[in-house]
């Protein structure tokens, strides 16, 4: 083969590469723009040293609460080595906004069987929106190393039916961690 022929095959392959990458980019752009799939990116600073004393992450304000518009807000503190509270109930088919913060080190979590996944970084509130279409317990492991006790840091999201969703007069509901 002479050099011109080699170059021609290489240019042809480059076109195939460009096409393949083009397809990948189009799929990603469509899924993120049209389906509004964005990772948690709210850049909402919070002072990790005082969040347990003041603001929305004080102990009395943690857990699930129903908002006037029917959506649910869940506030969870991730700390060495537990999520507070360890069990949160949410109703099926409602918009749920999770808000996480930590007073100590880096944590992370996912809710099994969903695409809820976020890091929890000291200094920032992580916020994730989701809807649970099926009732049942979802496991929530801490997925980022946070110290020796990391492996025992699990909690539960309990998805309940509309009938079982019985918040108190403040719109709050709690549940018990089973194990």
């Amino acid at each position: 083969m002479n050099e011109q022929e080699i170059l021609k095959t290489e240019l042809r392959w480059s076109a195939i590469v460009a096409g393949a990458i083009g397809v990948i980019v189009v799929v990603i752009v469509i899924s993120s723009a049209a389906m509004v799939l964005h990772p948690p990116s709210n850049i909402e600073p919070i002072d990790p040293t005082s969040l347990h004393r003041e603001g929305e992450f004080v102990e009395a304000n943690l857990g699930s609460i129903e908002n006037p518009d029917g959506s649910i807000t869940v506030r969870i503190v991730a700390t060495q080595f537990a999520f507070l509270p360890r069990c949160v109930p949410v109703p099926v088919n409602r918009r749920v906004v999770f808000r996480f913060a930590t007073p100590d080190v880096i944590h992370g979590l996912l809710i099994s069987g969903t695409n809820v996944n976020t890091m929890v970084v000291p200094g920032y509130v992580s916020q994730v929106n989701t809807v649970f279409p099926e009732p049942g317990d979802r496991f929530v492991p801490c997925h980022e190393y946070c110290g020796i006790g990391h492996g025992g840091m699990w909690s539960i999201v309990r998805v309940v039916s509309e009938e079982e969703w019985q918040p108190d007069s403040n719109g709050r509901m709690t549940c018990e961690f089973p194990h």
Partner: protein
Amino acid sequence: MNSRTSELIRAHLWVSFFAFVIAALMGAAQMLARSELTAPAERPETYFISVTAHGTLMAYVLPTLFFMGFGYFIAVTALGRDLPSMKAAWTGFWLALVGSLMAAITVFLGKATVLYTFYPPLTGSAFYYLGLVLVVAGSLIWVGIMFVAMRSWKRDNPGKPVPLAMFATVASAVLWLWTTAGVAAELLFQVIPAAFGWKQTIDVGLSRTLFSWTLHAIVYFWLLPAYIAFYTLLPQAAGGRLYSDTMGRLAFILFLLYSLPVGMHHLFMDPEHASGFKFLQMMLTTLVTVPTLLTIFTISASLEIAGRLRGGTGLFGWIARLPWDRPMVLASGLAFVMLAFGGFSGIINMSYGMNAMVHNTSWVTAHFHLIFGGSVVIMYFAIAYEIWPKLTGRTVASEMPLRLQLWLWFIGVMTMTLPWHVLGLAGQPRRVGTFDYSVPEIAWWGPWTLVSTVGGALMFASAVIFIWILLTRYRTTTQPVAPMTYALAVHPPRRLPSALNGFALWNWLVAFLMAIAYAYPIAQFFIIDAPQALVHGA
């Protein structure tokens, strides 16, 4: 090669392989701990010490010392001259060795159980981080020697193309220099002052961003020796020629450009960055696939030349004619298979939306064990087998144990990682020592984890065989060992534009891309008056 240089290179490779076999044992033990079986000393402290040691030795010691040794080998054999300074090279070696020992001993004493990715505001003993700084310092001496070696060769050979193997090595050295800047800033300005107790708080958003600067480029640094072997050793081992020398240069330049401004894809799920820069770096990440796809083409074409020269015909007939019994050819074939699996999962990882399904699950562990543990390390084996006779003057009587070792590694990697994909999609988190398999929802994970444990054991067995082969299978014979040669291109370049023969232009381009990708994401922490986190002892 003179014996002094050979001694230098072997010293690097032995430190690298010794660290490797220790870390492989740790890895196999971790698989046992995660399974339903009981591992020795199965306690969280032991598990996380083991994970920290495994990561530190595999990520910082094995590839760095390997590439330093391999780089010296290439500089001496491809340029056909001695190293510019043996004294500097030995200084680099001792710094790296002392640093490795310092870091490893601190970890094994349980004083720095922070995993190899640090996670400030968790902090361990300052000796751990200082050890790693010494390893990097040693490797930067190597970078300097590579620069000087290429420059003085160019001065003595004006207008001549730098041999591809050396060009690629210097590209990797340039990449390494850029790569280390992020982690060096994190360690020197944030983590080490905190570890000494000089600072009580850490800006965690900033430290994660600085580490992400290093975190993707470093894996390409680990990978590049494998690519150097694909371009400069494999075509010749297969009995053919390199299809295109220019395409090889281009691939290494593209690795230099695109493996750096993409590190924020490790921070997709982080709350301290806006989606705009995540999106930008995701788009740049798609471009990292380009040099690999170009390589697949060039190497396939080179192998086709070899297969046809050996009498292969038809569309695919040449594949069967390749000399698969040669370790370099076999390892490359197996590396490509693992690269295909790992590349596929990598495209899922970098996709912004889909990443949420797999972030920090066993899926990701599967991805990088396929690419680094699989494709890259199997090529380290093949490179060692290729250059060992040149270093020692000894050869193997039979290549059978070498083939067995390579196959065992491949089977081990595949057995270990395939279940991790399934478990990762089911939400099994990484970096967890034990699971309570009596919980009904995760009971089915048990058997899959057991399969991975078998894979880990096979890999450890293969690692031990590798060391055994290097120690005992190479023997002195009456046959002299032929001097080292590198693959010839179909059309060897006679003259090259300076852009394909040096890195000045590309350094400016890297600086430009890094400014676009990282200037604001780093500056924002000084603009928004970022909150500080209290330092926590690990």
